[in-house]
């Protein structure tokens, strides 16, 4: 079965034998984007979080057939070394990761949160950022989420000034 989707702004068509193959495997193995991680395989830990049409999705439990015709964003598409997303910048500045394995999922979940709630409170973070980090970097992540919100707000202001 052919699935056409846009991944990080680039149109892709993949030929998949089983349409119920998790999107995660297609992203990692077929498209060779290794930033999105496999954690639990049961949509519980959030390590595999990416965006489908702007919404955070646990890709280990998301059949690729549902991504047909949709826009997928992975951690690689969030930003890059020269132009990091505010969430990536904040993560660097707050030195959040320890082992780092779960962090792409957290960053994607945070980016989705800031799109919906640009200035999140502790309660917003508690409700929406429910991924699991075995290193226990939650405290630094909370600081980074606040910093990311600030950086994103500054970015929006600067962009509107330039426009």
């Amino acid at each position, binding site marked *: 079965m052919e699935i056409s989707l846009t991944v990080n702004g680039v149109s892709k068509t993949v030929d998949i034998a089983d349409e*119920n193959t*998790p999107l995660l495997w297609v992203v990692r193995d077929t498209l060779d984007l290794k930033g999105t991680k496999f954690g639990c*395989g*049961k*949509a*519980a830990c959030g390590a595999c*979080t990416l965006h489908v049409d702007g*919404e*955070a*999705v*646990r890709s*280990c*439990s*998301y*059949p690729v057939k*549902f991504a047909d015709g949709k826009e997928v964003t992975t951690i690689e598409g969030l930003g890059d070394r020269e132009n990091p997303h505010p969430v990536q910048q904040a993560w660097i500045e707050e030195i959040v990761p320890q082992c780092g394995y779960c962090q792409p999922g957290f960053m994607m*979940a945070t980016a*989705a*949160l800031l*799109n*919906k*709630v640009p200035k999140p409170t502790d309660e*917003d973070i*508690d*409700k*929406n*950022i*429910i991924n699991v980090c075995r290193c226990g970097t939650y405290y630094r992540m909370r600081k980074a989420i606040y910093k990311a919100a600030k950086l994103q707000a500054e970015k929006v202001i600067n962009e509107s000034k330039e426009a």
Partner: protein
Amino acid sequence: MKLKPIYTFLALTVVGFLFALANTPKISAYEILEKQSKNTQNSNDDYDKMMDVLTHQRCMNCHPSDDIPKQGDASHPHHFGMARGEDDHGFEATSCNTCHQSQNNLNSGVPGAPHWALAPASMAWEGLTRAQIAERLLDKSMNGNRSHQELIEHMTEDDLVLWAWEPGVDADGEPRTIPPVSKEEFKKAVENWFADGAIIPSK
């Protein structure tokens, strides 16, 4: 001479009475009561079957009274602190659809069905008696302004309601339990109960 019309009238009355008597259905008061009782019993049986389903975990877990969805046959609170949110779909960036899609995922064990969400808060059933659930079901101010016909359609045709009989497997790959009444029996019971006037037995 004046008496002739009177006799004629009396004779016609007697003939009419006898004719009416001969054509009266042969049914006693006892039989009428027995029939009514049988109808009531049938209606109660339909009600019981319907309620066996509505109070089963596959239905009740998403009709919470505390805004927290439940999981499993033990109906424990949904993991990860998930809750109703503003629109019955969870929170802004982490909603039901972050994990639940429009069909069961047999690989991960995450259940799914079209328009997966909590039932509206007005349709909270958790902790209610069967009669209270039925009252709430019929109350248009709480059931989404649904008529009896719309309730029948919702209960017998909606994909999310019917998911209860095809709930997939859990995180361990074990099939989820299904209601104790078959889907076809449930549909028939719902249709019959409403056809008999949607009578709540305790009333």
